[in-house]
């Protein structure tokens, strides 16, 4: 941009600012005239001089309604406000509004000097002209044409530098009296736009939907994230950390140590989390909104809890860095006098955030704000690139633009980092110089997951149980095993009775439950996605046996659906496979016996199942096919018996989840060519190519698995 253009833009902004002052003066004049009108009309006085009073009233009424003078200028007091709203509904305007509209048009003209695309674009010009001339239909048509021609994203990106001005212009001149206050605040720069400038729906009315005292829980970063964390303090390092966290509902606190051994702390807060408008994360859409419009929000309260948990010692210095909603949230922290009394906040760096109307409780706090003029998010408080007000002469404000006009790309953390790294070296160096005390070695990093309100313990109350450490040959593990999320399939087959009888010899169990003269055998597979042992898969082959001490087969059928605490029947485990060494090590404690370790795949989607055990070249079994029609049923507990070192062991898996019973599954089990003994056992049972009689499936469930218990069956 040339120096001449810069001078023109500065002249236009100065003129716009002075026009605001003139508009405010005319507003005060209108208020005085309205007050004189309402005061002089009191009946007690009027009856004492009715003719003179009438003439005075008539002159005042003319002064506040003359369209060629002050316009429809009722304002102030209950009667004045009511009359003003009725006037707006009827399309009446005041001189104040007309002067403020001129100021907004000058602001748009100033932005157009710096952004020639605004001036040279006939569609945008048409929109601005229609808005300025109060031609509603024409404005709507112009906007629709823009959306149709450019799409919503490009339209918003193009409009971003004058977004607040165009909305305020429309709101000032339209016939909706409820958005006038928001328009007034944008036009005069006297506060955060208090309502949606289109509908007039109050921001605070929307923001109060976002409730919660805020909560923070420590979380470990994934290894791939931890190794990429910045190990020295710098502006780009902190911003890269924020980009690394992404919009996952997490924040990061780091401690840095300078050469003199002084430790300082840096809070790093990302922006809005993509997803539901209001989930339990304060970084959701509503959270972003309330952080911007309120002084305290669940996001800022959760941040306070994270800082308290981190344990920043009193007196040690703290810098707050935030992007987007995170920028607004950290500004809320620094506005909080109580927080600032507990902690010495020295610096705030806000990137791409609407913070124009936030003020630090301690004026000594150094604030730096970086915004891209095509990023629409910082303009949500009504003041964007076109603003003519120097709201923060004591802040370091970088309001820049680059050739990338597309929102949301220009709002992304990565884009701001690239701009600061490559295009804004002076700004980066200036902020880095400000942050000099924080440019030491990182000595501690802790991430936090934030919540609107304290989250329930996962799996509560089913998985809220006492735990203890159990020794295995690979170290100690925590029992019982708690699975927060898993899926399973149990397929029941009719197997060779002689082969099953051979498996049960000397176990004290059996005979196997019979179906039509054949033995009932179960193949069970599950994918335990989130457990206290990590993620793992397992597969088991079991012979269904009745109560070891009352082994009449007929009694087994009503016993099978019972909960584990009442069930006597179960599956005698004839072979198990798991896919992690940890589970293999703990298996003797969980169900007895030694499982094989090999890959297990489990896929239960779209009414079909695919289970494979063993690698392609070492396949034990494949169970695939459509599960067919189903009826709902609660997931069944699992009870198993196993033999280990001469003893019979009983184990239970208690489950919670919605299951399905598939009465006519079109699934087939194919035994592979692996040398694993399980392959031979499956063949002996006659299961190669067999179809199950019945399948039970669960897409998602929780499970609790205690250690097995020895029982005397022999």
């Amino acid at each position, binding site marked *: 941009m040339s120096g001449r253009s810069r*001078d*023109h*833009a500065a*002249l*236009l902004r100065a*003129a716009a600012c*002075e*026009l605001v*002052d*003139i508009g405010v*003066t*005319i507003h*005060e*004049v209108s208020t*005085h*005239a309205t*007050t*004189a009108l309402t*005061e*002089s009309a*009191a*009946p*007690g*006085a009027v009856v*004492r*001089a009715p003719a*003179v*009073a009438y*003439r*005075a009233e*008539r*002159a*005042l009424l*003319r*002064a506040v309604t*003359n369209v*060629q*003078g*002050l*316009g429809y200028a009722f304002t102030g007091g209950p009667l004045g406000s009511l009359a003003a709203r009725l006037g707006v509904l009827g399309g009446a305007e005041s*001189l104040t509004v*007309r*002067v403020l509209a*001129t100021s907004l*048009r*000058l602001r748009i*003209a100033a932005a157009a*000097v710096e952004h020639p695309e605004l001036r040279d674009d006939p569609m945008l010009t048409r929109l601005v002209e229609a808005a300025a001339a109060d031609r509603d239909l024409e404005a709507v048509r112009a906007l629709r044409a823009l959306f149709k021609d450019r799409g919503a994203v490009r339209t918003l990106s193009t409009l971003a530098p004058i977004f607040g001005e165009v909305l305020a212009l429309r709101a000032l001149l339209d016939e909706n009296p409820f958005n006038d206050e928001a328009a007034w605040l944008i036009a005069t720069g006297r506060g955060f736009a208090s309502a949606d400038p289109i509908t007039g729906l109050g921001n605070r009315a929307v923001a109060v939907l976002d409730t919660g005292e805020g909560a923070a829980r420590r979380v470990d970063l994934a290894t791939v994230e931890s190794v990429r964390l910045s190990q020295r303090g710098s502006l780009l390092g902190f911003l890269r950390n924020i980009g690394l966290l992404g919009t996952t509902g997490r924040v990061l606190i780091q401690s840095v140590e300078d050469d003199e051994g002084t430790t300082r702390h840096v809070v790093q807060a990302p922006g809005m989390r993509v997803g539901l408008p209001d989930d339990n994360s304060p970084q959701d859409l509503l959270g972003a909104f309330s952080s911007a419009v309120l002084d305290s929000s669940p996001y800022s309260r959760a941040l306070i809890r994270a800082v308290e948990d981190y344990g920043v010692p009193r007196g040690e210095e703290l810098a707050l860095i935030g992007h987007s909603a995170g920028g607004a949230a950290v500004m809320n922290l620094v506005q909080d006098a109580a927080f600032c009394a507990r902690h010495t906040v020295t610096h705030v760096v806000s990137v791409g955030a609407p913070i124009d109307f936030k003020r630090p409780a301690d004026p000594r706090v150094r604030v730096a704000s970086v915004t891209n003029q095509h990023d629409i998010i910082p303009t949500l408080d009504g003041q964007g690139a076109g603003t003519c007000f120097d709201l923060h002469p004591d802040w370091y404000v970088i309001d820049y633009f680059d050739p990338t006009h597309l929102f949301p790309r220009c709002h992304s953390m990565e884009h701001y980092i690239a701009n600061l790294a490559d295009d804004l070296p002076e700004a980066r160096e200036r902020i880095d110089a400000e942050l000099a005390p924080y440019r030491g070695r990182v000595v501690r990093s802790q991430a936090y997951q934030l919540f609107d309100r304290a989250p329930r313990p996962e799996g509560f109350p089913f998985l809220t149980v006492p735990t203890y450490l159990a020794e295995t040959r690979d170290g100690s593990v925590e029992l019982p095993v708690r699975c927060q999320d898993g899926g399973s399939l149990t397929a029941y087959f009719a197997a060779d009775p002689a082969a099953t009888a051979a498996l049960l010899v000397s176990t004290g169990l059996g005979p196997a439950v019979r179906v039509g003269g054949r033995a009932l055998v179960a193949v069970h597979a599950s994918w335990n996605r989130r457990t206290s042992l990590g993620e793992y898969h397992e597969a088991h082959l079991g012979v269904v046996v009745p109560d070891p001490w009352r082994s009449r087969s007929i009694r087994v059928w009503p016993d099978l659906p019972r909960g584990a605490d009442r069930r006597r029947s179960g599956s005698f485990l004839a072979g198990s496979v798991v896919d992690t060494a940890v589970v293999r090590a703990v298996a003797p404690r969980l169900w007895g016996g030694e499982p094989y370790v090999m890959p297990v795949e489990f896929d239960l989607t779209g009414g079909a199942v695919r289970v494979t055990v063993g690698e392609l070249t070492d396949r034990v079994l494949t169970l695939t096919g459509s599960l067919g029609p189903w009826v709902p049923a609660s997931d069944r507990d699992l009870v198993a018996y196993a033999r280990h070192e001469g003893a019979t062991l009983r184990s239970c898996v208690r489950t919670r989840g919605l299951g399905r019973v598939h009465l006519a599954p079109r699934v087939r089990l194919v035994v592979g060519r692996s040398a694993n003994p399980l392959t031979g056992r499956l063949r002996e049972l006659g299961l190669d190519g067999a179809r199950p009689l019945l399948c039970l499936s669960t897409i998602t469930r929780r499970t609790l698995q205690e250690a097995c218990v020895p029982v005397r069956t022999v």
Partner: protein
Amino acid sequence: MPSSPDKPDAPQRIAARVELLRSDVRRLADCAERLRRIEAELEEGGAAPPWLRESVRAHLDACAVAAADLTEAEARLSRYAERLGG
């Protein structure tokens, strides 16, 4: 909350309103002067948008009419205050 003019101090209160209106007439004249200066500065700097002159002219006319309206109202209100006081 302002007291009502049917109270004993009504003449004084209305007289105060008269003073305020008189001062507002001067403020409107000042606004008109500032509007003229804004236009002149933008024209001189070559930054004036093509629509500005018409807008400023309309605002100046409105300020003049408003000042006349307020002067009339101030005179009528002043007479009213005198009648109540008398």
